[in-house]
C-alpha cells in the first residue's frame, strides 16, 4: 500500500511539484504569520512581563500600558503605607521625540525607572550597565534600532524633547511592536524627556512582602488610595495584549493571514490530490474489484497525502527558517519555537488529510463493476 501511494505521488513530477508548492506556501504563511502573531503579542507586553513586580497601580480605567494617565506622586506614599507591601517605585512610559545627529526626528517610547532596583528596566543588556543610567543624561537603546535612531556607539549625545541624552549602553532584542523604539532611562531623567509634571508618575510598581496575599494587598490599596486601579502584572499584560491584538485589529489581520495560507494550501492540495486520484481511478476500481476493502483504498490516498504533507512541511520549515533568520535584523518580531513547529506539523498533516477526504469520498463510492466496462 505504501509503495502504491508513493508511486502514485511521485509518478507525475509536475503534479508533485504543484502539490508541494501548495503545501510549502501554506506552511510558510502559517509559520510566519503565527510567529508574527506570537511575537507581536509578546512584544506588546514585554515591559510588563519583564518588570519583576507583583502589582501595577494605574490611574482609573487605563486600557493599556502606553496610555498611562499621570497621577500625583503622593499616591506613592499612600501605597507605601499599605500593609503587606515590600516596596513601591514610580514608573514612566510615555512617547517623546528623539533628535538624530543628522537633524531628523523619530518618535520613541521613554521608559523611566529606578536603576537601583531595576523594576521595569531593561533586560538583555549587551553593552554598558543599568547603573550607568543614574548619570543625569544617561539613556540605553536597543541595538536593533541603532540605525533607526542614528546611534553607533556608547558616548554619543542626542536630544530627547529638547534635553541632552547620552547613550550609556545597549540592550539586545527589546523590540517595539509600534515604530517607536524603547529608550530606557532613570525616572529622574524621564521627567525631562516627556511632557509630565515633576511631581507626577504614570505608574506605581509594587512588590508585595514574601507570602503576602496579593488579593488582600490589592483590596487594601484600593481602600486607601482613591482614583486608581490595581492590576497584577499578569492582568495588565493580558489587558495590553488584548488591546493591541484585538481592539486595534492588528492581531486579527495577522491571524487572518495565517488562515488565508491554510485555506489556499487546503484548496491546492485538495485539487492536486483529487486530480491524482482521478488519474488513477481505474486502478482504484481494479483494487476494489480484486477485493480491497474501502479501508485499504482510503489508506492509500491518506498515505499519499501524508507523504506530501511531510515533504511540504520540511521544505516549508526550511524556507520559514530563512525568513525568520533574515527577518529578525529588519525588526520583525517573528517567534519560531518547538511548539510552533509542532503545531505547524499538526496543522499541515490535518490540512492534507482533510484535503484528501474529497478524493477518499470519490473512491469509496466508486463501483468496482466499472472494471468490466472495457
Amino acid at each position, binding site marked *: *500500500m505504501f*509503495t*502504491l501511494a508513493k*508511486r502514485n505521488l511521485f509518478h507525475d513530477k509536475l503534479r508533485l511539484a504543484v502539490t508541494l508548492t501548495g503545501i510549502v506556501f501554506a506552511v510558510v504563511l502559517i509559520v510566519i504569520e503565527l510567529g508574527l502573531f506570537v511575537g507581536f503579542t509578546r512584544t506588546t507586553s514585554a515591559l510588563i512581563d519583564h518588570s519583576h513586580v507583583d502589582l501595577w497601580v494605574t490611574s482609573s480605567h487605563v486600557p493599556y500600558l502606553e496610555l498611562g494617565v499621570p497621577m500625583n506622586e503622593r499616591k506613592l506614599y499612600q501605597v507605601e503605607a499599605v500593609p503587606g507591601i515590600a516596596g513601591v517605585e514610580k514608573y514612566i512610559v510615555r512617547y517623546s521625540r528623539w533628535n538624530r545627529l543628522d537633524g531628523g526626528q523619530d518618535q520613541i517610547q521613554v521608559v523611566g525607572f529606578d536603576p537601583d532596583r531595576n523594576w521595569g528596566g531593561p533586560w538583555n543588556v549587551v553593552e554598558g550597565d543599568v547603573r550607568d543610567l543614574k548619570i543625569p543624561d544617561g539613556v540605553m537603546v536597543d541595538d536593533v534600532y541603532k540605525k533607526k535612531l542614528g546611534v553607533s556607539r556608547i558616548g554619543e549625545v542626542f536630544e530627547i524633547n529638547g534635553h541632552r541624552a547620552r547613550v550609556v549602553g545597549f540592550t539586545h532584542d527589546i523590540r517595539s511592536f509600534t515604530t517607536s523604539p524603547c529608550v530606557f532611562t532613570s525616572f529622574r531623567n524621564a521627567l525631562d524627556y516627556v511632557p509630565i509634571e515633576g511631581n507626577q508618575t504614570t505608574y506605581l510598581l509594587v512588590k508585595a512582602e514574601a507570602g503576602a496575599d496579593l488579593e488582600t494587598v490589592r483590596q487594601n490599596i484600593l481602600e486607601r488610595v482613591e482614583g486608581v486601579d490595581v492590576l497584577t502584572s499578569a492582568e495588565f499584560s493580558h489587558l495590553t495584549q488584548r488591546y493591541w491584538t484585538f481592539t486595534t485589529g492588528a492581531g486579527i489581520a495577522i491571524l487572518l493571514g495565517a488562515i488565508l495560507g491554510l485555506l489556499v494550501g487546503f484548496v491546492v492540495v485538495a485539487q492536486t490530490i483529487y486530480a491524482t486520484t482521478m488519474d488513477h481511478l481505474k*486502478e482504484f476500481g481494479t483494487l476494489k474489484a*480484486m477485493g*480491497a*476493502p474501502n479501508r485499504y483504498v482510503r489508506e492509500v490516498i491518506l498515505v499519499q497525502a501524508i507523504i506530501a504533507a511531510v515533504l511540504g512541511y520540511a521544505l516549508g520549515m526550511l524556507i520559514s527558517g530563512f525568513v525568520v533568520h533574515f527577518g529578525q535584523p529588519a525588526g520583525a518580531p517573528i517567534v519560531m519555537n518547538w511548539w510552533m513547529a509542532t503545531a505547524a506539523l499538526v496543522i499541515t498533516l490535518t490540512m492534507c488529510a482533510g484535503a484528501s477526504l474529497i478524493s477518499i469520498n470519490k473512491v469509496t463510492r466508486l463501483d468496482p463493476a466499472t472494471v468490466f466496462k472495457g
Partner: protein
Amino acid sequence: MNTAILVRDVTKTYAEGAGSVSALRGVDLEVRRGEMVMLVGPSGSGKTTLLSIMGCILSATAGTVVIDGEQVSRLPESELPRVRRDHMGFVFQGFNLFPTLSAAENVGLMLDVKGIRGPQARKQSYELLDSVGLADKFDTSPANLSGGQKQRVAIARALAGDPGIILADEPTAALDSHTGRSVMEMLKSLAHERGRAVVVVTHDPRVVEFGDRAIRIEDGLIASQESKK
C-alpha cells in the same frame, strides 16, 4: 469435482428511466473445480453481468449465488470484498495493471490486499511470475511489457493468495491470435492441472474450444450449452 460456483434462478434488473431492463432472467449455472467454462454470446446478452454476479461485484436482483459453499447472495455489500479477496482472482480485458508499479509489485499489491507482506510476499511474487514464465521481468514496468506479457502478469496477480476461482473477462481481446492462444492455454492449465474453477467471458470464437463447456447466453437466458466431455 467440487462445486465452486452455484447460480440458481438469478435475475438482474437495471432501472432505466421510468422503466427497467432485465439483464439476466432466471439463470442456473454450476461451475466445478478443475473445470474451465466459457461464457459466450452477443454484446448485451448478459454474460458480463453474470460474470460480475459470480464475482460478487454485482448483486443479483433475485436468486441464489453460492461461492465455495457460502451463500453470498444474502450477504451485506460490505462483506463482498472479503469473498472476492478470499476466493477469487480476476483477469481483465485491458489487463488493468498498475502502471506505476513493476510486474512484481503488481503481484505483490494483490498479496498486500490479502495481508501477505514482507519477504514472504516478495518470494511469492517471484514464484507467481516464474509460474507464468516471467521471472526475468520481475522489476519491469508494465509499459515495457508486450500485451501477452501484461496479461500473464495479470494472471500471476489473479493467482496471488491462491484463490479457487479465476474469472476472466475477454482475456484475449487485446491480444493477437498467437498470444491469445498461449494465454488461454495458461488458463486451461490452471483449471486442469491446478484444480481451479475458471470462467471466461469471450466474444472470440477461436478461443471457445479451450473450454470444457461453452455456455451461450442470449437475452439474459442460457440459450445453449455445449460440453466437450
